[in-house]
């Protein structure tokens, strides 16, 4: 039997076998170290994603690279480390094009899972929206480069039976992609291909006929956090200035749907009986709920659904910023563009030509893309609303869970304490 050693994680004394992986040892002792590229049996570990960054004897290191040694003093949960790890996950969301509601892997995606565990509601980094290839050339697979986080698992793990590499990094810097060898890929068995799809932490590797028709995962990350310590998986937002106790003056709410589908408004209605309470406490100003078209007063809170795809959206949003004390982005589209932002990967000209000139439903002989001075002008891309004005709070989801919206609004209006359950915090 291997030697037993004593180490400390977040002040907790732990006995473990010397030489074992720190992430594993921590997990067995009830301490969750978030990790993404880490994959138990790849040795040496990949060390590419850096999501497991911890402190070892005061120095920041990736936990996945550490083997347990006598006297190790590890810090996992400090404000700085938590924020650093969260930032790295946010970086991945900003770098790729992760349209969770339209992804086969949603619910089983390690990246999404990390977002949930750390309560990432918006990326602090601007989305890059780089056009990336969806490669249909391989025989068995489809490679969705939009979703690849360059973890390297497939490069190390997916080999042909005679040991040939099927995947490899290609280029460098921000241009780095994981390239696939069509010839070698064709030599993989169906089983090997399915294995590749399974080990991909996101939905970047798909096997034809094995993803959409039959969902290939059990949505294992949807309901429960893997962090045993976590009673409040999604950290509560900083409470805004709270109101006084006693009979409150009616608060004023405005809502709007910009480049969205009104799904978030539908979700607001889903608070069901809560709405009856709400009506006693608030009054709606400009909102599709009561069909008031213009602001008539300054509002306490503005709920904005959808991103900005045209000049009118911009004007309305700027007006909201002026008229609302607190502005909340509701749903994925408002937060970072969401599904409408899929068009950000294609030049506007191509999009409009496809929609108005070349599509299946175009009238024969049609040759006009609508343009009139009374029509809003279409922007070059769909903008997240925080790229246009400052936003105070973000509620993720497509649509966000009704409970989440309701709790957040109550908190923002009256400073009520609350916590969002892990299961209420979703991107799809």
């Amino acid at each position, binding site marked *: 039997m291997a030697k037993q050693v004593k180490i400390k994680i977040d002040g907790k004394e732990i006995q473990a076998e010397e030489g074992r992986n720190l992430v594993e040892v921590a997990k067995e002792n009830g301490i969750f170290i978030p990790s993404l590229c880490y994959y138990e049996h790849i040795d*040496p570990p*990949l*060390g*590419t*994603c*850096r*999501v497991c*960054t911890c402190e070892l004897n005061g120095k*920041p290191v*990736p936990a996945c690279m550490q083997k347990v040694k006598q006297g190790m003093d590890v810090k996992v949960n400090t404000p*700085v480390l938590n924020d*650093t790890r969260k*930032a*790295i996950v946010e*970086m991945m969301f*900003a*770098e790729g094009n992760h349209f969770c509601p339209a992804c086969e892997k949603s619910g089983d995606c390690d990246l999404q899972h990390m977002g949930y565990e750390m309560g990432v509601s918006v990326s*602090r*980094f601007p989305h*890059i929206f780089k056009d990336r290839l969806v490669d249909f050339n391989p025989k068995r697979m489809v490679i969705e480069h939009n979703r690849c986080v*360059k973890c390297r698992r497939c490069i190390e793990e997916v*080999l042909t039976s*005679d*040991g*040939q*590499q*099927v*995947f*490899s*990094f*290609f*280029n*460098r*810097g*921000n*241009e*780095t992609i994981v*390239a*696939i*060898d069509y*010839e*070698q890929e064709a030599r993989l068995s169906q089983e090997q291909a399915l294995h590749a799809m399974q080990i991909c932490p996101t939905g970047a590797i798909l096997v034809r006929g094995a993803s959409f028709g039959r969902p290939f995962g059990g949505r294992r990350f949807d309901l429960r956090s893997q962090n045993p310590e976590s009673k409040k998986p999604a950290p509560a937002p900083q409470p805004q200035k709270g109101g006084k106790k006693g009979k409150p003056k009616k608060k004023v709410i405005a809502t709007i749907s910009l480049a969205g589908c009104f799904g978030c408004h539908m979700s607001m209605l889903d608070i069901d009986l809560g709405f009856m309470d709400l009506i006693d406490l608030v009054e709606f100003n400009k909102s599709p709920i009561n069909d008031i078209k213009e602001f008539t007063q300054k509002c306490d809170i503005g709920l904005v659904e959808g991103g900005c795809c045209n000049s009118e959206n*911009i004007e309305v949003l*700027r007006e909201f*910023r002026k008229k609302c004390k607190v502005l909340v982005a509701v749903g994925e589209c408002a937060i970072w563009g969401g599904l409408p932002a899929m068009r950000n990967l294609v*030049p506007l*000209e191509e999009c*409009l030509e496809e929609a108005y000139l070349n599509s299946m439903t175009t009238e024969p002989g049609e040759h006009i893309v*609508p*343009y009139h001075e009374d029509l809003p*002008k*279409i*922007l*070059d891309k769909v*903008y997240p609303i*925080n*790229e*246009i*004005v*400052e936003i105070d709070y973000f509620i993720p989801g497509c649509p966000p869970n009704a409970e989440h919206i309701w709790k957040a609004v109550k908190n923002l209006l009256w400073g009520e304490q609350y916590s969002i359950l892990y299961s209420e915090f979703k991107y799809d």
Partner: protein
Amino acid sequence: MQANLQAHQRAHPDLLDCLWSYQNRHGYIRDEDVAQCAAQRGISEVELEGVISFYHFFHRKPAGRFTIYLNNSIVSEFNGFQRVKEAFERETGTAFGGVDPSGQFGLFETACIGLSDQEPAALINFHPFTNLTTLKVKHIIAELKKGVPVEEICDEVADNIRYTPGEGRTLFLRDYFPGSAVAKLRGLTPEQVIDEMNRSKLSGRGGAFFPTGLKWGLCRQQESSPKYVVCNADEGEPGTFKDRVLMNTMPGLVLEGMIIAGYAIGASVGILYLRAEYTWMKGKLEKAIEQFYRMNLLGLNAAGIEGFNFDIRLQLGAGAYVVGEETAMLNSLEGKRGESRVKQYFPVERGYLNQPTVVNNVETLCAAARIMELGADFFLKLGLPESPGTKLISVSGDCHLPGIYEIEWGMKLEELLELCQAQSPYFIQVSGPSGECASMAEKDRVLSNDGLRCGGALMVFSHHRDILQILINFADFFKEESCGVCTPCRAGNFIIRRKLEKVRLGLARQSDYDEIRQWGRIMEMSSRCGLGKTATNSLVKALSAFPEYFAEKIQGEEDRLNKEFNMERAIAEYEKFRS
């Protein structure tokens, strides 16, 4: 164990040479070359393509009979890069990034080529051309069109040695007699050599300042054999050219350092990894190696020591800044992508081909050779007690005397600025983009191992230079040179570059500066190697060292609108449909 390795984990030490031979034969690497090379080695083509695409001097498309690389570092930018670039485009009839229709000229930009004291400079088929002007470019292209061979019209690279400490206090740039350092090995045990290094307190001159004796001692202790000595001659840090001068003036000295290191750790092979930008020095170094074999300083019973067999070979790089990081260099030597390794083992434990390896920089090895020649006591007399010795500094930028300065540790920054006759110095970049910047408020800081640490480059910028232009040039450099393996460096450098664009457009706010600081800290904490860890050093430091400059660049926060969004620009594309 070796036999069980998967094909993709095997090393291919001859791969870079093989790719170079294809590249040199056809001017690029053809599809059939890739197929042949992959088949010979039993690896998949995608793995090979991965290696090729990592190095920017390898081309998969024709790159012209004359491939021209113009340096775009900041010193070049301030010395007329744009005009020279336009001149090349005009004379060759093609734009940068492409090849002219006749296939004669290929124009490419490249990061620092180690000629910062004579910018703008370019490499044409890897021959150096320095101090370029519009007129000179016109002449060069005309000659090439006439069929004059490149080697006949290229420039002799000046060494520009500007300063050495007084009589008897110079370590590097003194007379050199080949063989005089290794001659001192006779009669010494390897342990005694290591003791001498330890006693001298020599620390790594590449910028990390790791004690050399300690490194050698750790490697000596390893039981595994064979062991290797790798000389890092890949000084890619923009603004650095000291190793160039060392190798150009006394190529034998670095070889002696390698022999001494080899003897000390018990190695039998030394590899000198020369950056491709210095291809023009390759012949000189090879000649020196040959001479050493003739003098019996290399080969069987090297340096006249019974039973000590030591060979040196030269490995040419292929263009990648990150390969200057020692573990990335080991990967590159093994014919892999030059990505830094995960820090599971030190190179002294498992380095080249998983064997114990000492990786030392050219200057470190030269210093080791001089210490053997002149004794540790001589070395300890120089510089400061805790930081003994001299340091080579490559000075460039806005000064009258750019070039090499051998200074004793302990010199004040101000003294060095005076020596090089800096012109109203304002923004001083110490140790290149990955180092730190300093304002004149820090002119009294002392250059030393534990003071203002200088890895070898000092770039001086005067009052009329725009700080942001400097920082943006650095950000572009890191964005380009990140190996792309870890998230914070790959995405972080790109995102930081975007943020700087916002500052440049005058649309930033105080909160943007706060974010730059925060994001820089995140990259520093979590990046895999030094590249990402240090990429934002200068930027973050500049924010606090030049507060007035940055204060002028920002907007107030009153209306809570994000000024970066520009409606006119956003609807410009749609306006095309106005009939």
